[in-house]
C-alpha cells in the first residue's frame, strides 16, 4: 500500500489563525479540506509538504444559506454530499447538486468539499502516479522534471482542469470569496483560474477560499453534462456546462457555455455564447455553436480516451446539452 510521508498536522481554531500559519510557513504548508485530492498526491510524492493545515472544521467555512430569489452562499468547507442534498440547492440550483452528485464516489463526497473541488489540482496521466512510476516514465515539468511528456518541447504544462463544479459555477455566474494575509476579495469563478497546468489558480498560496456566492437565478436555466468512462468514480474527460435565459418565444436572451477538462482551466466559449444570443434553438444554430465550441476545445493526450474521441464528443454532447433547452 502507498503510505503517507510524515508531516505535521495542525488544526487552527479560526480562519485568521489558518491564514497566519500559511503566511508564516510559506511554501512548506498546505491547506487541507477533505484531503481527497491532497492526500493521494502526498502518497504519490508529488506534494511534498511539511505542514498540513486542516480547515474542514472551521466555522467560518461551513454552512449554506439563501435561496434562488436572493442568491446563495455556500461555505467552502461544505462537503459535496451536503451540496448534493441541501434543499435550497436541490430546488433552486439543481444543476449544481446534480453535478456534485457526479463527483467521485459516495465516500469521497462525504469527505470532499466544494472549496477543495474548486482548488483541485490539475490532472495528467503522466503525473497522477506514484514516484516509482514517474521515475520509470521520466519526470515531467509539473514535478521533478524539466520537460512535458505530453507535448515535448512545450514550455508549459497542459495538465487538465478536472473539477466538475468549476464549469457549473461559472455557468451560474458564481463568485468566490478569498481571504488572505492582505485582506479579502471576491472574484468571479472564471478569474480564479489560469490556463497553466502548474500555476492553475490566480491566488496567493496563503489565500483561503471561504465562500462560493451565487446570484439569484433570475430566469436562468442550466445543464451539466459529464463525459467519462464509467458512471461513477471517474474524473471528466470532457464536461459541458450550459446556461441560458430564454424569452417567452424561446429566443435566447443570454447564454453561458463552459467546457471542462479540455485544458488547464475551464474554457468559456464566448464566441458560441455570442452566436446563441437572439436565436431560437434550432438545428442550424446548434450546428454553428457546436462547431465553435469544438474548434475552441484543444485537448491533449493526457487523460483517459483518445484526444480525437474527446474532441469529437464536444459536438455530440453539446448538441445533447442544448437539446435539453429546445
Amino acid at each position: 500500500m502507498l503510505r503517507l510521508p510524515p508531516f505535521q498536522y495542525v488544526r487552527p481554531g479560526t480562519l485568521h489563525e489558518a491564514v497566519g500559519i500559511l503566511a508564516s510557513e510559506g511554501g512548506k504548508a498546505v491547506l487541507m479540506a477533505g484531503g481527497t485530492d491532497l492526500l493521494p498526491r502526498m502518497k504519490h510524492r508529488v506534494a511534498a509538504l511539511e505542514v498540513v493545515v486542516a480547515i474542514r472544521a472551521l466555522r467560518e467555512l461551513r454552512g449554506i444559506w439563501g435561496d434562488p430569489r436572493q442568491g446563495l452562499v455556500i461555505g467552502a468547507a461544505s462537503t459535496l454530499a451536503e451540496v448534493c442534498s441541501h434543499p435550497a440547492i436541490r430546488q433552486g440550483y439543481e444543476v449544481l447538486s446534480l453535478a456534485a452528485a457526479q463527483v467521485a464516489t459516495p465516500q469521497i463526497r462525504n469527505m470532499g468539499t466544494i472549496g477543495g473541488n474548486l482548488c483541485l489540482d490539475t490532472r495528467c496521466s503522466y503525473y497522477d502516479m506514484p514516484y516509482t512510476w514517474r521515475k520509470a516514465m521520466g519526470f515531467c515539468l509539473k514535478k521533478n522534471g524539466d520537460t512535458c511528456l505530453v507535448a515535448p518541447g512545450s514550455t508549459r504544462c497542459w495538465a487538465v482542469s478536472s473539477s466538475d463544479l468549476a464549469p457549473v459555477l461559472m455557468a451560474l455566474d458564481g463568485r468566490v470569496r478569498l481571504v488572505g494575509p492582505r485582506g479579502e476579495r471576491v472574484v468571479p469563478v472564471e478569474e480564479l483560474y489560469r490556463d497553466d497546468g502548474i500555476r492553475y489558480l490566480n491566488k496567493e498560496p496563503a489565500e483561503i477560499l471561504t465562500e462560493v456566492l451565487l446570484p439569484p437565478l433570475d430566469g436562468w436555466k442550466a445543464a451539466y453534462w459529464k463525459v467519462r468512462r464509467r458512471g461513477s468514480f471517474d474524473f471528466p474527460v470532457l464536461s459541458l456546462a450550459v446556461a441560458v435565459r430564454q424569452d417567452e418565444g424561446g429566443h435566447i436572451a443570454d447564454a453561458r457555455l463552459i467546457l471542462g477538462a479540455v485544458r488547464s482551466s475551464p474554457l468559456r466559449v464566448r464566441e458560441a455564447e455570442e452566436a446563441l444570443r437572439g436565436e431560437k434553438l434550432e438545428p442550424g444554430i446548434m450546428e454553428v455553436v457546436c462547431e465553435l465550441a469544438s474548434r475552441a476545445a484543444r485537448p491533449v493526450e493526457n487523460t483517459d480516451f483518445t484526444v480525437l474521441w474527446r474532441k469529437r464528443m464536444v459536438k455530440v454532447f453539446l448538441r445533447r446539452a442544448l437539446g435539453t433547452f429546445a
Partner: protein
Amino acid sequence: MKEFTWISKPYPRVDAEAKVTGRVRYADDLVLPGMLFCKLLRSHLPHARIRRIDTTRARSLPGVLAVLTGKDLPAHKFGILPTSQDQEALCVEKVRYVGDPVAAVAAIDEWTAEQAVRLIEVEYDPLPSYMTIEDALFKEGEPIHAQGNVHKEVSLEFGDVATGFEEADYIREDIFLYHGSAHLPLEEHAAVASYEPGDLLTVWSSTQVPHYLHRTLSKVLDLPMSRIRVIATPVGGGFGGKSDIFNHEIVVAALAMITGRPVKCTLTREEVFYTLRRHPTLMWVRTGVREDGTITAMHFRAILEGGAYGSYGVATTYYVGALQPITYKIPNYRFEGMRVFTNAPPGGPKRGHGTPQPRFALECHLDKIAEDLGMDPVELRRRNLVAPHTKTVNWLRITSCGLAECLKKVVEASRFHEKHRRLPRGRGVGLAVSGYLSGAGLPIYWNDLPHSQVHLQVDRSGSVTLSCGAIDIGQGSNSVLVYTVCEILGVSPEDVRLIVADTAITPIDLGSYSSRVTFMAGNAALQAAQRMRDLIAAAVAEKLGVPAESLIFQGRQVKVGGGEDRALSWREACEVAEARYGLLSATGTYTPPRLAGPYKGSGVGPSPAYSYSACVAEVQVDEETGVVSVEKIWIAHDIGRALNPLLVLGQVEGSVYMGLGEALMEDLSVRQGVIRVPSMLEYKSPTVKEMPEVEAFLIETVDPEGPFGAKECGQGPLLPVPPAIANAIYDAVRVRIDEVPITPEKVLKALERRRKGEEGRFGPGGFPAIRFKEPIRVAPPSPSSAGRVEPRP
C-alpha cells in the same frame, strides 16, 4: 434422489460474517513483535544490464537493518513450471521489465525502507527493449533470455486438416486480438516471514499456491522443506494473480533469516500491476464447414505476448489451443501456438487461463460463418455440439455435458430468436458458448502423488477437525469443505474446526488454480468423511447391536433407521467410537484419473470433467459516441451439481463481471516500456454502475466423477461473455470489433469505415508471417475408445 441437508442449499459462506465484519486477518494485517518492513527497489528500465549496485548509503541510513541484492542469495533460479526456471528473487545480471526487482531493504518502518531504497545506486547499461510481438520476433539486438525471444512453440495436428478443408463447402479466415488485462484483486499481495531459533522459517503469504511456494522457498534458500512452514492467509481476491511465486515472498524470507526478525512486505497497487497479467494474444483462425454448418476442419494460430519470464506460459500456450474441441466436434484440428518474451511483466494465468482469448476468437468467427451461410447462429452451434461421454479429436475425455441444455435455456430466456436481427437499429443480441476444466488433470511438477488430501479428526467432544491444504481465495472452498463433511457426518458447521493451507499441519492440496479445489479437495473431503462415518457407524452398530448400514447420520444424531426411534447423539456416538478405536482419524485423497492422450503436449487440457456455459448478451450501441452499454446478460452454466447455489451464482455473476470488463474496457497496455496506468482509478474496470442485470441459470448434469456430481464454476462462465457482447454489437450496428476491449473509439472507427463503404470492422490487420515448426501429427481416438466412462466406484 436422496434429500440433502447441507448440500444444494443456499447457505451463506462459512466465513461470511467474519468477512463482512472485518474480522478476517489478511497477510497485511499480521503484526509480529519486532517486525521489520521491506521495500523493493525495482527496475525503472525495461531491459538493461546491471553494471553495479551500491548499497552503502542505504545501509548507513538509521533504521535500516539489512539491504539485500541478488548476490547475497544462493544462485538458484526459480519458476512455477519446472521447464521455466528463469526468475531470480533479485536480478543479478539483467533487468527485463519495468518493475523487475533488483534490491530490497528491511527497516524499522515503511517510510525508512522507502527512503533507503531511494539511496541505493544502480548503474545500468540499457539494452534495446521488445515491447510488442513484432519487436520480439523481428527486432535486432540482445534477446531477453539466452534462448532467444521465442519462449515456446507448439504445433499439433489432430486428424488430417488438409482433407478436412477439402471436404468443406465454405472456408473462412479471421484475425483477432485480445489485449492484456490485470487481475485487480482488492487485496494487494503481502507476505510476512519469521525465522526462529531451531531454524524454522515461517512464511505467511496471500498466495493461491502455498504448496508450490513451499517447494520454491526450499529450492531458492537451500533449506529442506521440513524446516519451512508456509501459511496461506485468507486471500482477498486472486483470479490467478496470486498463483505464481513472487519475488517479495522469497525476499522477506531471506531478510528474516539475515536479520533474525520478522519481516513484512506489502506491495503497492502499482507493484501489484507488475506481478502478472493476462497474455495479450493475437489469433488467426480458419474453419471449413459444410453447407449445413457442420465443421470439417479448423486451423488455429496464436501468438502470446509473454512478458519477461516464463511463469505458467508453456501451459498457457497449450491452453490457447486445447479447449476449442470440447464444445464443438472438430474432426480435424490443427493448432500452432507461440509465446514470445517481451519487456513487460510476465503473462500468467488469469481466470480462464489462456482460454478466454481463443474463445473470443472462435465464437465471433462462428457468428460470422453463420451470417455468411445465412444460418441461425444457434443452429450452427447445435449442429456441432459435442455429445456427453465422448472423446475429442485431441483426446480429451468428455463426461457429463449440459451444453445443449445451456444453449436452449439462454436462447429461450432471452427470446433470442425474436430479437436477433430484428431489434431496432442500435440494439442487438449476441450469443456464445464455452467449456472449461474442473481442475487440471496433471500437477505442474511431474509426480504420481495425490492432488488433494483431507484429514479429519473427531474426539469425545463431538468436534470435528478438518484440515486441508486448500486455500480459500474467495471462491468458497472453505464452505465446500465444511458443508461436505456436515452432509456426510450429519453435524452442523459449528461442530467443524477448519484448518487450511498451513504446510506444517494440513495435508497437501496443490492450490487454488485451474478450478480444481471444489472438485478435488471436495472429493478428498467426501472420502474422508465417508471413512469417518464408517468408523463411527461400526462402533455404534456394535454397541446397539444393529447393522452399521442401517444407521443414519443426521441432525447431530446417529439414528437407527427402519422405523426404530433409537438414536445416539452425535457426541455420544463419538464417545462410543473413541472408546472403541482410540483417536478417531480419517483421511481422504483425490488423484484424477490418467487422462492424457498419446502425444507430447497432451498434459494440458485433460480434466476429470468439463463445465459448460452459454450466454446471450443484449446491448445498446450509441452510434454517435461509440459507447456500448450492456443491458442484460443471460447465462446458463452446467455446474454438474450446485453444492451451494448461492456460492455458484456468486461465481457466475463474478465471471460475467470480469468478462464484461475485458470485453469493454480493461486494457493493461504499455506506453514507452511502462504499464500505462497501474492504478485502480485509471485502469478502467467496470463498477456496479456498469454491471447489467444478469439472469443466471444453473444446469445440473450430476457428473459421475465430481463430488456429489459437482463441476467447476469459478472460471468457465467468464468465457462466453466477451464474444457474446461482440456478436451483440454486430447485431446492433453491423460492425465487427475483432479486438477486445471494445472501446468507443474502435466502434466509431468501424462505423465510419462502414459508412464509407469499407468493411465495417475494427481489428488487427494481419498475422505475422512466421513459419511454425512441423506439427506433431496425432491420430484421433478411435470411435471405440471414444465412448463410455465408467462411474466412480
